[in-house]
Protein backbone atom coordinates (compact mmCIF):
# COMPACT_ATOMS: atom_id res chain seq x y z
CA UNK A 1 0.00 0.00 0.00
CA UNK A 2 2.76 2.36 1.01
CA UNK A 3 4.52 1.55 -2.24
CA UNK A 4 1.49 2.51 -4.23
CA UNK A 5 1.17 5.83 -2.45
CA UNK A 6 4.80 6.62 -3.14
CA UNK A 7 4.44 5.59 -6.75
CA UNK A 8 1.39 7.80 -7.07
CA UNK A 9 3.11 10.80 -5.54
CA UNK A 10 6.15 10.31 -7.75
CA UNK A 11 3.79 10.23 -10.69
CA UNK A 12 2.12 13.39 -9.48
CA UNK A 13 5.52 15.03 -9.33
CA UNK A 14 6.75 13.78 -12.64
CA UNK A 15 3.68 14.38 -14.73
CA UNK A 16 3.50 18.14 -14.41
CA UNK A 17 7.27 18.16 -14.76
CA UNK A 18 7.05 16.52 -18.13
CA UNK A 19 4.36 18.89 -19.32
CA UNK A 20 5.71 22.14 -17.94
CA UNK A 21 9.02 22.03 -19.79
CA UNK A 22 8.47 25.33 -21.52
CA UNK A 23 8.28 27.11 -18.14
CA UNK A 24 10.87 29.68 -17.24
CA UNK A 25 13.67 29.15 -14.76
CA UNK A 26 13.47 31.45 -11.78
CA UNK A 27 15.92 34.28 -11.89
CA UNK A 28 17.18 33.45 -8.42
CA UNK A 29 18.06 29.89 -9.45
CA UNK A 30 19.76 31.22 -12.56
CA UNK A 31 21.91 33.66 -10.61
CA UNK A 32 22.92 30.89 -8.20
CA UNK A 33 23.85 28.66 -11.10
CA UNK A 34 25.98 31.37 -12.69
CA UNK A 35 27.80 32.16 -9.46
CA UNK A 36 28.65 28.50 -8.87
CA UNK A 37 29.67 27.80 -12.46
CA UNK A 38 31.94 30.80 -13.04
CA UNK A 39 33.94 30.84 -9.84
CA UNK A 40 36.50 33.58 -9.45
CA UNK A 41 36.14 34.97 -12.99
CA UNK A 42 38.88 37.54 -12.45
CA UNK A 43 41.51 34.97 -11.48
CA UNK A 44 43.14 35.11 -14.91
CA UNK A 45 43.67 38.85 -14.83
CA UNK A 46 47.05 40.29 -14.02
CA UNK A 47 46.72 42.40 -10.87
CA UNK A 48 44.37 45.32 -11.33
CA UNK A 49 44.22 44.86 -15.08
CA UNK A 50 41.08 45.30 -17.12
CA UNK A 51 38.76 43.85 -18.17
CA UNK A 52 36.58 43.14 -15.20
CA UNK A 53 35.56 39.62 -16.14
CA UNK A 54 33.08 39.31 -13.28
CA UNK A 55 30.98 42.15 -14.69
CA UNK A 56 30.39 40.12 -17.85
CA UNK A 57 28.25 37.74 -15.82
CA UNK A 58 25.79 40.52 -15.02
CA UNK A 59 23.44 41.59 -17.78
CA UNK A 60 22.82 45.26 -18.47
CA UNK A 61 19.30 46.58 -19.13
CA UNK A 62 19.35 45.98 -22.86
CA UNK A 63 20.70 42.46 -22.52
CA UNK A 64 18.04 41.65 -19.95
CA UNK A 65 15.16 43.03 -22.04
CA UNK A 66 16.32 41.30 -25.20
CA UNK A 67 16.97 37.96 -23.45
CA UNK A 68 13.67 37.75 -21.62
CA UNK A 69 11.68 38.73 -24.72
CA UNK A 70 13.83 36.56 -26.99
CA UNK A 71 14.69 39.61 -29.05
CA UNK A 72 11.05 40.56 -29.63
CA UNK A 73 10.42 43.42 -27.18
CA UNK A 74 6.99 45.05 -27.05
CA UNK A 75 6.68 48.41 -28.81
CA UNK A 76 7.25 50.58 -25.75
CA UNK A 77 10.37 48.63 -24.76
CA UNK A 78 11.66 48.70 -28.33
CA UNK A 79 11.25 52.48 -28.50
CA UNK A 80 13.09 52.87 -25.20
CA UNK A 81 15.92 50.61 -26.35
CA UNK A 82 16.30 52.58 -29.58
CA UNK A 83 16.30 55.92 -27.78
CA UNK A 84 18.88 54.73 -25.22
CA UNK A 85 21.05 53.35 -28.01
CA UNK A 86 20.87 56.58 -29.98
CA UNK A 87 21.77 58.59 -26.88
CA UNK A 88 24.85 56.43 -26.30
CA UNK A 89 26.42 57.27 -29.66
CA UNK A 90 29.52 59.46 -29.55
CA UNK A 91 30.25 61.21 -32.84
CA UNK A 92 33.67 61.97 -34.34
CA UNK A 93 35.00 65.36 -33.19
CA UNK A 94 35.99 66.35 -36.70
CA UNK A 95 32.48 65.61 -37.99
CA UNK A 96 33.86 63.19 -40.59
CA UNK A 97 32.43 59.67 -40.74
CA UNK A 98 34.79 58.13 -43.26
CA UNK A 99 38.26 57.02 -42.17
CA UNK A 100 40.71 54.79 -44.01
CA UNK A 101 39.05 51.84 -45.79
CA UNK A 102 42.32 49.88 -45.96
CA UNK A 103 42.57 49.87 -42.20
CA UNK A 104 38.82 49.19 -42.12
CA UNK A 105 39.30 46.01 -44.15
CA UNK A 106 41.87 44.76 -41.60
CA UNK A 107 39.47 45.51 -38.76
CA UNK A 108 36.64 43.72 -40.58
CA UNK A 109 38.85 40.65 -41.05
CA UNK A 110 40.16 40.57 -37.48
CA UNK A 111 38.21 38.44 -35.02
CA UNK A 112 40.56 38.76 -32.10
CA UNK A 113 40.00 40.64 -28.89
CA UNK A 114 38.24 40.40 -25.52
CA UNK A 115 38.39 36.60 -25.21
CA UNK A 116 40.34 35.18 -22.28
CA UNK A 117 43.04 33.86 -24.56
CA UNK A 118 43.53 37.23 -26.30
CA UNK A 119 46.25 39.75 -25.45
CA UNK A 120 44.81 42.27 -23.01
CA UNK A 121 46.23 45.40 -24.62
CA UNK A 122 45.94 44.65 -28.34
CA UNK A 123 43.20 46.51 -30.23
CA UNK A 124 40.16 44.34 -30.92
CA UNK A 125 38.88 43.55 -34.37
CA UNK A 126 35.32 43.98 -35.60
CA UNK A 127 35.04 40.50 -37.11
CA UNK A 128 32.47 41.82 -39.58
CA UNK A 129 33.19 39.00 -42.05
CA UNK A 130 32.05 36.48 -39.44
CA UNK A 131 28.49 37.63 -40.11
CA UNK A 132 28.54 39.64 -43.37
CA UNK A 133 29.60 39.38 -46.96
CA UNK A 134 31.51 42.64 -47.60
CA UNK A 135 34.28 42.70 -50.24
CA UNK A 136 33.15 40.11 -52.79
CA UNK A 137 36.75 38.97 -53.18
CA UNK A 138 36.59 37.53 -49.64
CA UNK A 139 34.87 34.17 -49.89
CA UNK A 140 35.08 33.24 -46.21
CA UNK A 141 32.15 35.27 -44.98
CA UNK A 142 29.29 34.39 -42.67
CA UNK A 143 25.58 34.78 -43.20
CA UNK A 144 24.17 35.76 -39.80
CA UNK A 145 23.83 39.34 -41.06
CA UNK A 146 22.82 40.63 -44.52
CA UNK A 147 25.32 41.05 -47.36
CA UNK A 148 27.03 44.44 -47.32
CA UNK A 149 28.52 44.09 -50.79
CA UNK A 150 28.29 47.36 -52.75
CA UNK A 151 26.85 48.99 -49.64
CA UNK A 152 27.95 52.55 -50.44
CA UNK A 153 26.88 52.35 -54.05
CA UNK A 154 23.45 51.05 -53.03
CA UNK A 155 23.12 54.06 -50.71
CA UNK A 156 24.24 56.56 -53.35
CA UNK A 157 27.21 57.55 -51.17
CA UNK A 158 25.08 60.17 -49.40
CA UNK A 159 26.23 62.01 -46.26
CA UNK A 160 23.10 60.78 -44.49
CA UNK A 161 24.04 57.17 -45.29
CA UNK A 162 27.59 57.74 -44.01
CA UNK A 163 26.17 58.93 -40.72
CA UNK A 164 23.60 56.13 -40.49
CA UNK A 165 26.29 53.53 -41.15
CA UNK A 166 28.54 54.99 -38.47
CA UNK A 167 25.60 54.93 -36.06
CA UNK A 168 24.69 51.36 -37.02
CA UNK A 169 28.19 50.17 -36.19
CA UNK A 170 28.44 52.28 -33.04
CA UNK A 171 25.18 50.95 -31.62
CA UNK A 172 23.10 48.71 -33.88
CA UNK A 173 20.07 48.96 -31.57
CA UNK A 174 19.47 52.60 -32.46
CA UNK A 175 17.96 51.32 -35.71
CA UNK A 176 16.66 47.88 -34.68
CA UNK A 177 15.90 47.06 -31.05
CA UNK A 178 17.44 43.75 -29.98
CA UNK A 179 19.60 43.52 -33.08
CA UNK A 180 21.93 40.53 -33.06
CA UNK A 181 24.89 42.72 -34.01
CA UNK A 182 27.36 43.78 -31.28
CA UNK A 183 27.35 47.41 -30.03
CA UNK A 184 30.88 48.11 -31.21
CA UNK A 185 31.12 51.71 -29.98
CA UNK A 186 28.95 51.68 -26.88
CA UNK A 187 30.62 48.54 -25.54
CA UNK A 188 34.10 49.83 -26.32
CA UNK A 189 34.94 46.99 -28.70
CA UNK A 190 36.12 49.43 -31.40
CA UNK A 191 37.44 52.99 -31.05
CA UNK A 192 35.85 55.94 -32.85
CA UNK A 193 38.72 55.87 -35.35
CA UNK A 194 38.23 52.16 -36.00
CA UNK A 195 34.50 52.68 -36.56
CA UNK A 196 35.29 55.47 -39.05
CA UNK A 197 37.64 53.08 -40.82
CA UNK A 198 35.06 50.31 -41.24
CA UNK A 199 32.46 52.90 -42.22
CA UNK A 200 34.89 53.92 -44.98
CA UNK A 201 35.24 50.30 -46.01
CA UNK A 202 31.48 50.16 -46.62
CA UNK A 203 30.84 53.70 -47.82
CA UNK A 204 33.85 55.24 -49.56
CA UNK A 205 33.89 55.38 -53.36
CA UNK A 206 37.38 53.93 -53.68
CA UNK A 207 36.72 50.98 -51.36
CA UNK A 208 36.76 47.60 -53.17
CA UNK A 209 33.34 46.98 -51.61
CA UNK A 210 31.86 49.46 -54.09
CA UNK A 211 33.79 48.38 -57.18
Amino acid at each position, binding site marked *: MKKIIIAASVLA*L*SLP*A*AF*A*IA*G*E*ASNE*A*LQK*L*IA*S*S*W*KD*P*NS*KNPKGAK*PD*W*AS*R*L*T*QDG*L*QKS*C*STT*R*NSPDNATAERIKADAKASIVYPEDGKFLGDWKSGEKIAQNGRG*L*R*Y*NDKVDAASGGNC*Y*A*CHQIDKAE*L*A*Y*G*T*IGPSLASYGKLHDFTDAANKATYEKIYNSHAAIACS*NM*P*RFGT*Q*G*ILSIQQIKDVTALLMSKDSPVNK
Partner: protein
Amino acid sequence: MTFRSLFGALAMAACAVTGHALIAERALAQDDAAKGIEQYRKMMQDDPFANPGLLYVDAGEALWKEKRGTKNVSLEGCDMGKGPGVLEGAFAELPRYFADADKVMDAESRVIWCMENLQGLDTKPIIKGAFSKRGKGGSEMEFLASYIGSLSNGMKLKPQLSHPKEKQAYELGEALFYMRAGPHDFSCETCHGVSGTRIRLQDLPDLHKAGVDAQKAIPTWPAYRVSTESVKTMQHRMADCYRQMRMPKVGFGSDAVTALITFLAKQAEGGEINVPALKR
Protein backbone atom coordinates in the same frame (compact mmCIF):
# COMPACT_ATOMS: atom_id res chain seq x y z
CA MET B 1 47.55 -3.80 -23.69
CA THR B 2 48.27 -1.42 -20.85
CA PHE B 3 47.13 2.14 -20.84
CA ARG B 4 50.66 3.41 -21.37
CA SER B 5 51.44 1.31 -24.43
CA LEU B 6 48.08 2.31 -25.88
CA PHE B 7 49.14 5.88 -25.45
CA GLY B 8 52.21 5.19 -27.57
CA ALA B 9 50.14 3.46 -30.22
CA LEU B 10 47.82 6.41 -30.23
CA ALA B 11 50.62 8.86 -30.86
CA MET B 12 51.95 6.72 -33.71
CA ALA B 13 48.55 6.26 -35.29
CA ALA B 14 47.94 9.98 -35.00
CA CYS B 15 51.08 10.49 -37.09
CA ALA B 16 49.86 7.96 -39.63
CA VAL B 17 46.62 9.83 -40.17
CA THR B 18 48.14 13.29 -40.42
CA GLY B 19 48.62 12.60 -44.11
CA HIS B 20 44.88 12.20 -44.52
CA ALA B 21 44.26 15.21 -42.32
CA LEU B 22 46.57 17.36 -44.41
CA ILE B 23 44.78 16.40 -47.59
CA ALA B 24 41.50 17.20 -45.90
CA GLU B 25 42.80 20.50 -44.61
CA ARG B 26 43.95 21.56 -48.02
CA ALA B 27 40.53 20.71 -49.38
CA LEU B 28 39.00 22.76 -46.59
CA ALA B 29 41.09 25.75 -47.49
CA GLN B 30 39.25 25.92 -50.77
CA ASP B 31 35.82 27.41 -50.72
CA ASP B 32 34.28 23.97 -51.04
CA ALA B 33 34.86 23.14 -47.40
CA ALA B 34 31.83 20.93 -46.97
CA LYS B 35 32.87 18.71 -49.86
CA GLY B 36 36.32 18.26 -48.36
CA ILE B 37 35.05 16.98 -45.05
CA GLU B 38 32.54 14.74 -46.81
CA GLN B 39 35.34 13.16 -48.80
CA TYR B 40 37.41 12.68 -45.68
CA ARG B 41 34.46 11.13 -43.91
CA LYS B 42 33.95 8.73 -46.77
CA MET B 43 37.59 7.77 -46.69
CA MET B 44 37.14 6.98 -43.01
CA GLN B 45 34.01 4.96 -43.67
CA ASP B 46 35.78 2.83 -46.23
CA ASP B 47 38.34 2.08 -43.57
CA PRO B 48 36.67 2.46 -40.19
CA PHE B 49 39.93 1.88 -38.39
CA ALA B 50 41.25 5.06 -39.96
CA ASN B 51 39.04 7.11 -37.61
CA PRO B 52 41.63 8.15 -35.05
CA GLY B 53 38.81 8.62 -32.55
CA LEU B 54 38.61 4.83 -32.25
CA LEU B 55 42.00 4.84 -30.56
CA TYR B 56 40.53 7.11 -27.93
CA VAL B 57 37.81 4.53 -27.37
CA ASP B 58 40.44 1.83 -26.80
CA ALA B 59 42.44 4.06 -24.49
CA GLY B 60 39.24 4.85 -22.61
CA GLU B 61 38.39 1.20 -22.15
CA ALA B 62 41.84 0.50 -20.73
CA LEU B 63 41.50 3.45 -18.38
CA TRP B 64 37.99 2.39 -17.32
CA LYS B 65 39.32 -1.02 -16.30
CA GLU B 66 42.51 0.11 -14.62
CA LYS B 67 42.68 -0.07 -10.82
CA ARG B 68 43.61 3.35 -9.51
CA GLY B 69 43.24 5.83 -6.66
CA THR B 70 43.54 5.41 -2.89
CA LYS B 71 40.92 2.66 -3.07
CA ASN B 72 42.75 0.86 -5.89
CA VAL B 73 39.64 -0.05 -7.82
CA SER B 74 38.66 0.38 -11.45
CA LEU B 75 35.77 2.45 -12.74
CA GLU B 76 33.88 -0.75 -13.53
CA GLY B 77 31.75 -0.25 -10.42
CA CYS B 78 30.75 3.25 -11.51
CA ASP B 79 27.02 3.78 -12.00
CA MET B 80 26.54 5.87 -15.15
CA GLY B 81 22.78 5.73 -14.70
CA LYS B 82 21.88 2.14 -15.61
CA GLY B 83 23.43 0.51 -12.56
CA PRO B 84 27.05 -0.08 -11.50
CA GLY B 85 29.20 -1.18 -14.40
CA VAL B 86 26.41 -1.03 -17.02
CA LEU B 87 27.61 1.14 -19.89
CA GLU B 88 25.50 -0.13 -22.79
CA GLY B 89 22.95 2.57 -23.48
CA ALA B 90 23.95 4.71 -20.49
CA PHE B 91 25.27 7.60 -22.56
CA ALA B 92 22.00 7.79 -24.51
CA GLU B 93 20.18 8.79 -21.31
CA LEU B 94 22.58 11.44 -20.04
CA PRO B 95 22.50 13.97 -18.48
CA ARG B 96 20.33 12.54 -15.71
CA TYR B 97 19.71 12.87 -11.99
CA PHE B 98 21.92 10.77 -9.71
CA ALA B 99 20.55 10.23 -6.22
CA ASP B 100 23.95 9.45 -4.68
CA ALA B 101 25.27 12.87 -5.72
CA ASP B 102 21.83 14.55 -5.52
CA LYS B 103 22.67 16.25 -8.80
CA VAL B 104 22.04 16.13 -12.51
CA MET B 105 25.24 15.07 -14.26
CA ASP B 106 26.47 14.63 -17.80
CA ALA B 107 28.86 11.84 -18.80
CA GLU B 108 32.00 13.78 -18.01
CA SER B 109 31.01 15.19 -14.64
CA ARG B 110 29.69 11.74 -13.65
CA VAL B 111 33.05 10.15 -14.43
CA ILE B 112 34.77 12.76 -12.28
CA TRP B 113 32.31 11.94 -9.47
CA CYS B 114 33.15 8.23 -9.72
CA MET B 115 36.88 8.92 -9.79
CA GLU B 116 36.57 10.89 -6.58
CA ASN B 117 34.04 8.78 -4.71
CA LEU B 118 34.70 5.29 -6.01
CA GLN B 119 38.40 5.34 -6.71
CA GLY B 120 39.59 8.04 -4.33
CA LEU B 121 41.47 9.75 -7.14
CA ASP B 122 42.72 13.32 -6.97
CA THR B 123 40.79 14.74 -9.92
CA LYS B 124 42.33 18.23 -9.88
CA PRO B 125 45.02 17.42 -12.46
CA ILE B 126 42.52 15.42 -14.53
CA ILE B 127 40.13 18.38 -14.68
CA LYS B 128 42.99 20.80 -15.34
CA GLY B 129 44.12 18.73 -18.32
CA ALA B 130 40.64 17.71 -19.48
CA PHE B 131 40.95 19.57 -22.80
CA SER B 132 44.10 18.22 -24.42
CA LYS B 133 46.46 20.58 -26.17
CA ARG B 134 47.11 20.18 -29.88
CA GLY B 135 49.47 17.32 -30.68
CA LYS B 136 49.45 15.97 -27.13
CA GLY B 137 47.50 12.83 -27.97
CA GLY B 138 44.37 13.20 -25.88
CA SER B 139 43.31 13.47 -22.23
CA GLU B 140 41.80 11.01 -19.78
CA MET B 141 38.42 12.71 -20.08
CA GLU B 142 38.56 12.52 -23.86
CA PHE B 143 39.42 8.81 -23.73
CA LEU B 144 36.76 7.94 -21.17
CA ALA B 145 33.99 10.04 -22.74
CA SER B 146 34.74 8.45 -26.14
CA TYR B 147 34.61 4.96 -24.66
CA ILE B 148 31.41 5.52 -22.69
CA GLY B 149 29.72 7.28 -25.60
CA SER B 150 30.67 4.57 -28.09
CA LEU B 151 28.77 1.97 -26.05
CA SER B 152 25.53 3.73 -26.99
CA ASN B 153 26.32 3.93 -30.69
CA GLY B 154 23.31 3.29 -32.90
CA MET B 155 20.89 4.07 -30.07
CA LYS B 156 18.62 7.09 -29.96
CA LEU B 157 19.17 9.96 -27.57
CA LYS B 158 16.55 9.67 -24.82
CA PRO B 159 16.75 12.67 -22.50
CA GLN B 160 15.64 12.19 -18.90
CA LEU B 161 13.29 14.90 -17.71
CA SER B 162 11.06 13.21 -15.17
CA HIS B 163 12.94 14.14 -12.00
CA PRO B 164 12.30 17.71 -10.77
CA LYS B 165 16.03 18.43 -10.81
CA GLU B 166 16.27 17.25 -14.40
CA LYS B 167 13.40 19.50 -15.30
CA GLN B 168 15.07 22.38 -13.49
CA ALA B 169 18.36 21.73 -15.31
CA TYR B 170 16.48 21.85 -18.60
CA GLU B 171 14.84 25.16 -17.71
CA LEU B 172 18.09 26.70 -16.55
CA GLY B 173 19.78 25.47 -19.71
CA GLU B 174 17.08 27.07 -21.78
CA ALA B 175 17.51 30.37 -19.92
CA LEU B 176 21.28 30.23 -20.45
CA PHE B 177 20.79 29.49 -24.13
CA TYR B 178 18.95 32.80 -24.57
CA MET B 179 21.01 34.83 -22.09
CA ARG B 180 22.73 37.68 -23.91
CA ALA B 181 25.78 38.88 -22.02
CA GLY B 182 29.36 40.06 -22.31
CA PRO B 183 30.78 42.87 -24.43
CA HIS B 184 29.34 41.43 -27.66
CA ASP B 185 25.81 40.78 -26.30
CA PHE B 186 26.01 37.21 -27.60
CA SER B 187 23.75 34.39 -26.50
CA CYS B 188 23.89 30.87 -27.88
CA GLU B 189 20.86 31.83 -29.91
CA THR B 190 22.78 34.61 -31.70
CA CYS B 191 24.75 31.98 -33.58
CA HIS B 192 22.48 28.95 -33.30
CA GLY B 193 19.06 30.52 -33.84
CA VAL B 194 18.52 30.11 -37.57
CA SER B 195 19.09 27.05 -39.72
CA GLY B 196 21.44 27.30 -42.69
CA THR B 197 23.56 30.19 -41.45
CA ARG B 198 27.30 30.17 -41.00
CA ILE B 199 30.12 32.08 -39.37
CA ARG B 200 32.81 32.61 -41.94
CA LEU B 201 32.64 29.19 -43.60
CA GLN B 202 31.57 27.21 -40.55
CA ASP B 203 28.02 25.92 -40.68
CA LEU B 204 25.98 26.71 -37.59
CA PRO B 205 23.36 24.21 -36.50
CA ASP B 206 20.05 25.70 -35.38
CA LEU B 207 19.81 24.56 -31.78
CA HIS B 208 16.98 26.81 -30.65
CA LYS B 209 14.39 24.34 -31.84
CA ALA B 210 14.11 20.59 -31.65
CA GLY B 211 14.82 18.89 -34.92
CA VAL B 212 17.36 17.53 -37.40
CA ASP B 213 20.02 20.19 -36.87
CA ALA B 214 20.22 19.36 -33.17
CA GLN B 215 19.79 15.64 -33.79
CA LYS B 216 22.84 15.68 -36.04
CA ALA B 217 24.96 18.00 -33.93
CA ILE B 218 24.44 16.84 -30.36
CA PRO B 219 24.66 13.00 -30.16
CA THR B 220 27.90 13.07 -32.14
CA TRP B 221 30.12 14.44 -29.37
CA PRO B 222 32.79 13.50 -28.39
CA ALA B 223 33.98 13.99 -31.95
CA TYR B 224 37.28 13.68 -33.76
CA ARG B 225 38.00 17.16 -35.11
CA VAL B 226 39.90 17.12 -38.35
CA SER B 227 40.85 20.77 -37.83
CA THR B 228 42.57 20.10 -34.51
CA GLU B 229 43.49 16.46 -35.15
CA SER B 230 42.08 15.44 -31.81
CA VAL B 231 38.94 14.32 -30.05
CA LYS B 232 36.99 17.07 -28.35
CA THR B 233 34.16 16.51 -25.88
CA MET B 234 30.83 18.23 -25.25
CA GLN B 235 32.30 19.95 -22.17
CA HIS B 236 34.94 21.41 -24.45
CA ARG B 237 32.36 22.48 -27.04
CA MET B 238 30.40 24.43 -24.41
CA ALA B 239 33.54 25.99 -22.94
CA ASP B 240 34.80 26.99 -26.37
CA CYS B 241 31.53 28.61 -27.43
CA TYR B 242 31.56 30.59 -24.16
CA ARG B 243 35.12 31.67 -24.99
CA GLN B 244 33.91 32.91 -28.39
CA MET B 245 31.14 34.73 -26.58
CA ARG B 246 33.83 36.63 -24.63
CA MET B 247 32.59 35.22 -21.36
CA PRO B 248 34.92 34.28 -18.51
CA LYS B 249 36.08 30.68 -18.38
CA VAL B 250 33.17 28.44 -17.39
CA GLY B 251 33.92 25.68 -14.89
CA PHE B 252 34.53 22.16 -16.19
CA GLY B 253 31.57 19.99 -15.20
CA SER B 254 29.82 23.03 -13.73
CA ASP B 255 26.05 23.09 -13.27
CA ALA B 256 25.73 25.71 -16.02
CA VAL B 257 27.32 23.39 -18.57
CA THR B 258 25.25 20.44 -17.37
CA ALA B 259 22.12 22.58 -17.71
CA LEU B 260 23.02 23.57 -21.26
CA ILE B 261 23.75 19.97 -22.23
CA THR B 262 20.42 18.90 -20.70
CA PHE B 263 18.63 21.53 -22.79
CA LEU B 264 20.51 20.54 -25.94
CA ALA B 265 19.83 16.83 -25.38
CA LYS B 266 16.11 17.56 -25.32
CA GLN B 267 16.39 19.53 -28.57
CA ALA B 268 18.20 16.54 -30.06
CA GLU B 269 15.83 13.88 -28.70
CA GLY B 270 15.70 10.87 -31.01
CA GLY B 271 19.00 11.69 -32.69
CA GLU B 272 21.24 8.70 -33.24
CA ILE B 273 24.38 8.38 -31.18
CA ASN B 274 27.57 8.09 -33.18
CA VAL B 275 30.63 8.61 -31.01
CA PRO B 276 33.28 9.70 -31.68
CA ALA B 277 31.98 11.20 -34.92
CA LEU B 278 34.18 12.96 -37.43
CA LYS B 279 33.78 16.71 -37.60
CA ARG B 280 35.42 19.63 -39.27
